[in-house]
């Protein structure tokens, strides 16, 4: 499996996700500077977490216009798998590859802690190593993770089964108490119509190593390996 991790000025989880990719897929990704014109031949392109351009103006807004994005958008349309984690998810919504937007958390505070997620789909290239209904523990760390879309879009997402992960409580119940940031319908991750582009706020790369206290993030990388070898 060939993967590339895009490095924007201000990315700061680029190394973290590269470590997970290497450890869990056995292949070190190419680290690609945002100023490049093309992404090297890849099965998977990862937009990592961080604060691209300081997240000034709007999270992900300036990165969405980085030179490399033209090629990423073209490759995504041609079917290359794209994974946007946290800031990467924000970039994907700003480029409109994914619908909606990540607004300021309802608490207005940055929030960093483990959250519980219910896996809504186990038939995607990102989640086939989970089982539908699994409750997994993965950290979030964001200031702007409050997923918003208009009613029509939310309905379409639900109808098309494009919500892949939702914030939940220990027995999988979806409710306000388990919603860390005010996201509509407790949405933590959504996928595009083709099933090749996933954006999620939680950081699977942060709990994919027993030494860090958990491995619930690891199946995402294994899923990708199996689907894309």
């Amino acid at each position, binding site marked *: 499996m060939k993967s590339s991790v895009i490095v924007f000025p201000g990315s700061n989880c680029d190394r973290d996700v590269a470590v997970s990719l290497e450890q869990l897929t056995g292949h070190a990704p190419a680290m690609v500077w945002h100023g490049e014109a093309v992404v090297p031949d890849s099965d998977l392109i990862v937009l990592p977490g961080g604060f691209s351009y300081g997240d000034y*103006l709007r999270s992900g807004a300036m990165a969405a*216009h980085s030179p490399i994005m033209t090629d990423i958008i073209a490759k995504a349309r041609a079917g290359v798998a794209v994974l946007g984690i946290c800031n990467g998810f924000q970039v994907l919504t700003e480029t*409109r590859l994914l619908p909606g937007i990540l607004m300021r958390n*309802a608490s207005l505070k940055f929030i960093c802690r483990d959250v519980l997620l219910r896996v809504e789909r186990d038939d995607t290239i990102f989640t086939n190593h989970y089982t539908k209904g699994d409750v997994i523990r993965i950290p979030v760390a964001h200031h702007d993770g409050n997923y918003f879309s208009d009613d029509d879009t939310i309905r379409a997402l639900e109808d098309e089964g494009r919500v892949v992960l939702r914030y939940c409580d220990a027995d999988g119940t979806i409710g306000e108490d388990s919603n860390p940031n005010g996201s509509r319908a407790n949405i933590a991750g959504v996928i595009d119509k083709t099933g090749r582009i996933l954006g999620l706020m939680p950081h699977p790369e942060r709990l994919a190593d027993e030494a860090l206290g958990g491995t619930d993030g690891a199946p995402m990388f294994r899923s990708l390996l199996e689907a894309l070898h």
Partner: protein
Amino acid sequence: MKARIKITLKNGVLDPQGKAIANALGALGFDGVDGVRQGKYIELELSESDPKRAEAEVKAMCEQLLANTVIENYQFELEPA
């Protein structure tokens, strides 16, 4: 020229900051506040001096970067330097 741009959230879009401000104002004892919306205000210094061209330029900047037109509206005024 100077451009003064106001970027506001569209109707129906959730505004966590506005809501928090409304609560905080209430807590401070300002009780006649029926609604708060927070947006952005951006001032640009432009070297362009032709109002028509400046207008087209600012519009393009708003569409491409400054506003996210999925959720935001923008409005601007130009002022000769």
